[in-house]
């Protein structure tokens, strides 16, 4: 026998279930309870940066879109700074009104999710290597036992994407494109479309972060 290590163990994850909206988006569950609700709108009129919309669906292994998924995003501001004390990058400044986080559910009818935010700047990665602009996603739903982490990159950042240290870790080049959202400039605000494929052909890359 040896001495025991006195670390605690991480609490086990469980599915968010079909009624996750009650706790996290009560208005979508069908009632109003909190004065202040968290939403899918990340930017206000004072936020610096280019306004964008992110839209997409979450699709299961049979090709059916999930109507009960919940998504959260976490991103840097237009200067590439996270609004968090551990971000000590020298360049750029924190945007006080921009938390960088939002949540939404896929629509019960259309199955589409949508965020209104700004395009993030370049963030310094490990060993000082710049990461291409990206948005961190976390997806939970009925049938998902532990939240899935992925990243969305921008199709109009080809050069930065080609040098991105995380995209380049993905061994099969053909899978990298599952993380790159196409840009649609046909409306008044650019829309990036990002479908998340949970399983099968074109399966999105998910990270163990």
């Amino acid at each position, binding site marked *: 026998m040896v001495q025991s290590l*006195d*670390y*605690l*163990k*991480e*609490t*086990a*994850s*469980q*599915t*968010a*279930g079909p*009624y996750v909206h*009650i*706790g*996290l988006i*009560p208005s979508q*569950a*069908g*009632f109003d*309870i*909190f*004065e*202040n609700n968290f939403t899918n709108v990340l930017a206000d009129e004072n936020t610096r940066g280019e306004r964008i919309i992110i839209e997409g669906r979450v699709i*299961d*292994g049979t090709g059916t879109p999930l109507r009960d998924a919940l998504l959260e995003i*976490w991103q840097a501001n237009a200067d590439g700074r*996270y*609004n*968090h004390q*551990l*971000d000590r990058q020298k360049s750029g400044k924190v945007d006080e009104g921009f*938390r*960088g986080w939002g949540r939404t559910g896929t629509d*019960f009818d259309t199955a589409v999710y949508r965020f209104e935010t700004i395009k993030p700047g370049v*963030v310094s*990665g490990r060993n000082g290597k710049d*990461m291409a602009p*990206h948005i*961190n996603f*976390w997806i939970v739903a*009925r*049938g*998902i*036992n532990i*939240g*899935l982490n992925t*990243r969305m990159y921008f199709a109009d950042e080809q050069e930065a994407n080609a040098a991105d240290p*995380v995209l380049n*870790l993905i061994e099969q080049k053909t899978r990298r494109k599952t993380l790159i959202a196409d840009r649609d400039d046909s409306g008044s605000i650019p829309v990036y479309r990002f479908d998340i494929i*949970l*399983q*099968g052909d074109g*399966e*999105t*890359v*998910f*990270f*163990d*972060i």
Partner: protein
Amino acid sequence: MEFYQRDRTLQPAGYTPIYKTSVARSPRQSLMSLQGSLSEITGPVFGQNELGPLDNDLIRNYAKDGDPIGERIFVHGRVLDENNRPVPNTLVEFWQANAGGRYRHKKDTYLAPIDPNFGGCGRALTDENGYYFFRTIKPGPYPWRNYVNSWRPAHIHFSVFGSGFAQRLITQMYFEGDPLIKECPIVHVIPDEDAINRLIAPIDLKGSVPLDTIAYKFDIVLRGRRSTLFENRLEGN
């Protein structure tokens, strides 16, 4: 700084056929292991000013003309990390069915009635010691379409943030002594018996208010953080 790698032997896999919905909703490719960068070690920060005074009181926060029907309980505990350090000022959200096992959700069609005085959700920020508490009524079990005769044990859903996005966690709390726990496929997607036991809240008579409300204790452990040994630890690790 980075977080300790998640111990996937204690966590449920994606593909767990006893829980049928997981079959089509789990990736078939391996997860790609990614060392933490700023994108993973940082995460959203919330303030007390964003919460209302009744947000952690489910007995009062949706009451229309009286109290909800059911067993009055407190649920309280600490959010800690694997280093046994408190996680202060972190957002904890919770939601649940009413005493009859009915959710206030437009997609729940179970025949047990809605309680007009019960919403079923709340939230709290942990204090400087990682402590949180809320007041509610004990939820009832309810049937679901997995096997023909599947019933969820009484449970409360929890959502916890931690200090970095890599710590983000959703789980479920169960109640000591509930015989449905050992029958539940959702519980048993967790491969480790001790990890299951850590989701079961013991009754806490010392934390109860006599003639008023009984208490359950539920601690939550998030991933611990590492900084390189012998480097300066000015960040407080």
